[in-house]
């Protein structure tokens, strides 16, 4: 049996009346002990006897690949094979691709493309052999810079007359912002262990969305997905980079088949930078037309992004601009430049991370022009319904986020004019931004087996650090009246029912609701055994209570077990109303007048994401997002060589993410909210909201501190210094 739900309308909040009291609490992660003792096993942590080691080899240029010393390397000591198989993939698959990405090793479309796998008895031998493989390429790089391409696509919204609105506006802003190409840089490099049992393939890999990944891998290998089992019980971060299968998975599977032994392929960090999808650089023209009070009459948000030929993804920069603010005259959309640079794809909050950030900087410019407080500017422009489709919002929490965030930050004490506070060499300023991120739901299934010992929850969902083990424990425990230690959650195995996978912030709410439904099915069975209506049933600490009757659940089970299966899909609730999460960011920075260095002194983030399922893990995710905002604003950016597009800074020494000393105290305020449209749990996504606009608060604070508007992110010291007189 299964309890199926298509979320078409509003759901009742059943959890509110439940008695266990663990849902939403800041419970420690059940997987915490494994993670602090080193017992948690990631993709590269289990190596069976007789396992061979494979190293991918990167293309040094574009065009046809010629290997000059294939036999010599193939016959060297300890080397078992040099594999160049047409099924090997060019780059990681896009999220939810569900099929093989572009394949082939004969020609390279970008520098760094994997074009061979060297397999040897040991890592050292494989690495040495991979380095000694001599490759020649004969092609020209083609187009590698966005401005040289003839872009594809048209704006998806053009309403009214934006040019007219701009020329008749009392205040207007017409600016170009750019954001740098960037990477997820999850700390766990992409890695795979593959072995075959006849026709059956088992793969341990670093992946976010197993049900899609299984099909991607099977399609790449041209085998039946039924013969593929994927395992990913622990994943060392993803942030989009592990949405689709990566080159190591396909190559390891091919090698393992050919050599009849298990093969492990771990990508070197420098390979991860190239073979896994990056976030596209963006060039965003933003136009704002407003009346004397700052009310928007027109919005333009047109972007140029890039990707490799053959890739379906285009960074949806203006995803939130469509509904963030009102204004009748609108031109919004993206164009795509086809470049022979490493492939682009989803990186944490695709679209909003860069789109909201640049847009909120432009809003700050408008506030300066109008001469009103930037918080007030946002408040004046909150739409009462979706400005383009006219549908209502499922909930709209921007005003509350702005007001409560401002209060907590102490925004009211701010000097209005820039360049008003100075401490020695340092200019001090504050800035803010609004946060938006669409709320999505996918399809998910989960099952629960309830036995006298407790409940076992199974789904192929992953925990990439997001807290899935914790929240699914809490959801099942709450619905079934069990303390956390009597719930076991098993994830990351395609023999379990297909969950949503982790991505787009939809994992918690989607798979959470599937678990919730599975538990509801069990509740109905318990109610039946209690001879009562399920609505009158109370479950707590392993006891079922109905009216005056109270019986241990173990007794009701009568030595057997009860099984529940839940299946959830998004329905009309995701098209009849606009679902979004909202928030506000505030930052205080110091800008060095001599060096142009920016230090963030403190940040405040207020977020509304429906029901918070675990207050502790939710807070951590917000910390993560805000920290990424600091990186985006100040330090992070891939540098592509303008001659051939290759990534110049493909390691952690040269690609600068925020480190401990760059992160100031972060105040996170989670607004208590229920969104009945988002499903029975009334929870929404929050893993990405924290990055949407965070960098804008930092850059707006830089302007307030020293009067410099940096429109090319990241605002490295040279760019700040160029604006300081």
């Amino acid at each position, binding site marked *: 049996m299964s309890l199926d739900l298509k979320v078409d309308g509003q759901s009742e909040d059943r959890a509110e009346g439940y008695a266990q009291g663990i849902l939403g609490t800041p419970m420690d992660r059940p997987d915490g002990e*494994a993670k602090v003792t*080193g017992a948690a096993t990631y993709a590269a942590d289990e190596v069976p006897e007789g396992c061979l080691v494979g190293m991918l080899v990167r293309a040094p240029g574009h065009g046809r690949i010629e290997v000059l010393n294939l036999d010599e390397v193939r016959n060297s000591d300890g080397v078992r094979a040099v594999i160049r198989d047409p099924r090997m993939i060019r780059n990681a698959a896009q999220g939810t691709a569900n099929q093989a990405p572009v394949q082939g090793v004969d020609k390279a479309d970008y520098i760094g493309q994997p074009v061979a796998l060297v397999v040897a008895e040991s890592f050292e031998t494989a690495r040495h052999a991979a380095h000694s493989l001599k490759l020649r390429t004969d092609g020209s790089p083609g187009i590698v810079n966005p401005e040289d391409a003839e872009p594809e696509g048209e704006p998806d919204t053009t309403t009214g007359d934006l040019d007219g609105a701009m020329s008749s506006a009392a205040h207007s802003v017409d600016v170009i912002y750019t954001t740098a190409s960037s990477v997820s840089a999850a*700390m766990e490099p992409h890695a795979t262990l593959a072995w075959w049992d006849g026709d059956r393939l088992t793969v341990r890999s670093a992946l976010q969305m197993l049900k899609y990944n299984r099909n991607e891998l099977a399609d790449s290998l041209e085998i039946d997905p039924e013969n593929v089992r994927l395992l990913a019980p622990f994943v060392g971060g993803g942030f989009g980079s592990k949405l689709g299968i990566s080159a190591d998975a396909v190559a390891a599977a091919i090698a393992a088949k050919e050599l009849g032994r298990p093969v492990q392929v771990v990508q070197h960090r420098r390979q991860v930078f190239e073979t896994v999808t990056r976030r596209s650089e963006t060039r965003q023209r933003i136009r704002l037309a407003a009346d004397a009070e700052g009310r928007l009459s027109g919005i333009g948000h047109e972007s140029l992004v890039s990707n490799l030929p053959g890739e379906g993804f285009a960074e949806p920069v203006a995803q939130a601009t469509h509904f963030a603010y009102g204004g009748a005259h609108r031109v919004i959309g993206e164009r795509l430049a086809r470049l022979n640079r490493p492939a682009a794809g989803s990186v944490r909050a695709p679209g909003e991370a860069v789109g909201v950030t640049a847009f909120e900087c432009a809003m700050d410019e408008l506030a300066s022009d109008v001469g009103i407080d930037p918080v007030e500017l946002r408040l004046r422009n909150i739409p009462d319904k979706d400005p383009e489709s006219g549908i209502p919002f499922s909930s709209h929490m921007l005003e509350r986020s702005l007001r409560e965030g401002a209060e907590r930050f102490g925004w009211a004490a701010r000097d209005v004019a820039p360049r008003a506070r100075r401490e020695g060499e340092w200019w001090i300023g504050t800035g803010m931004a609004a946060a938006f991120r669409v709320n999505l739901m996918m399809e998910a299934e989960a099952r629960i087996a309830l036995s006298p010992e407790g409940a076992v929850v199974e789904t192929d969902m992953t925990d990439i650090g997001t807290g899935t083990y914790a929240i699914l424990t809490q959801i099942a425990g709450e619905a079934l009246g069990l303390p956390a230690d009597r719930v076991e959650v098993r994830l990351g195995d395609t023999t379990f029912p297909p969950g949503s996978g982790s991505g787009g912030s939809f994992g918690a709410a989607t798979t959470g609701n599937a678990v919730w439904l599975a538990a509801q099915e069990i509740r109905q069975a318990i109610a039946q055994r209690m001879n009562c209506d399920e609505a009158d049933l109370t479950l707590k600490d392993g006891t079922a209570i109905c009216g005056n009757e109270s019986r241990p659940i173990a007794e009701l089970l009568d030595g057997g077990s009860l099984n529940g299966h839940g299946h959830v899909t998004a329905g009309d609730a995701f098209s009849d109303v606009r679902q979004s999460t909202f928030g506000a960011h505030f930052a205080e920075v110091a800008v060095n007048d001599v060096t142009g260095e920016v230090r963030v002194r403190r940040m405040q983030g207020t977020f509304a994401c429906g029901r918070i399922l675990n207050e502790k893990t939710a807070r951590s995710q917000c910390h993560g997002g805000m920290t990424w905002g600091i990186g985006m604003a100040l330090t992070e950016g891939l540098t592509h060589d303008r001659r051939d597009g290759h990534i110049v800074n493909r390691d952690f020494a040269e690609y600068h993410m925020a480190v401990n000393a760059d992160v100031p105290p972060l105040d996170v305020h989670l607004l208590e909210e229920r969104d009945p449209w988002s499903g029975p749990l009334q929870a929404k996504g929050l893993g990405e909201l924290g990055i949407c606009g965070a960098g804008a608060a930092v850059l707006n604070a830089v302007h307030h501190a020293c009067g410099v508007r940096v429109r090319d992110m990241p605002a490295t010291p040279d760019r700040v210094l160029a604006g300081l007189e």
Partner: protein
Amino acid sequence: MKITLTINKHAQTVDVDPRVSLLDALRGELGLTGSKKGCDHGQCGACTVLVNGRRINSCLSLAVMHDGDEVTTVEGLANGELSPLQAAFVEHDGFQCGFCTPGQLCSATGMLGELEDGWPSHASDSLEGGYELTEEELSERMSGNLCRCSCYPGINAAIRQAAEKDGAA
């Protein structure tokens, strides 16, 4: 080459290729996969272990250089039960994905020792010792350990709690 290491208090002899890093020897030959490889270039700190009480990036050191050394890895931090630092990491959510965590834990353990021994850092006002675990000192001294999940608030709160329990700060 044959070398003997005392790992987490147990002496072990291994035969390693001289090209094998200490990290790979731990993870491979010795089966201690708690220590992680995030970059293999000394840029992330995921491979941090304690060698003779000092924290090092084990990916930057060859195993054969450590004959006779005492090595502590994340697997050796718990003593029957979680160490105060490990427990504090769980309590303060000092991790999300957990991949950088073994390195953070070993690094923090070594760092608190360095502070106690009066080693200065970039954040120190003087070279004379007697340093307190201020926010600046803590975050500066832990900046060799990257956490892309960005759990720095939890990491720092956990280290502080453990240090205070220990009376070290």
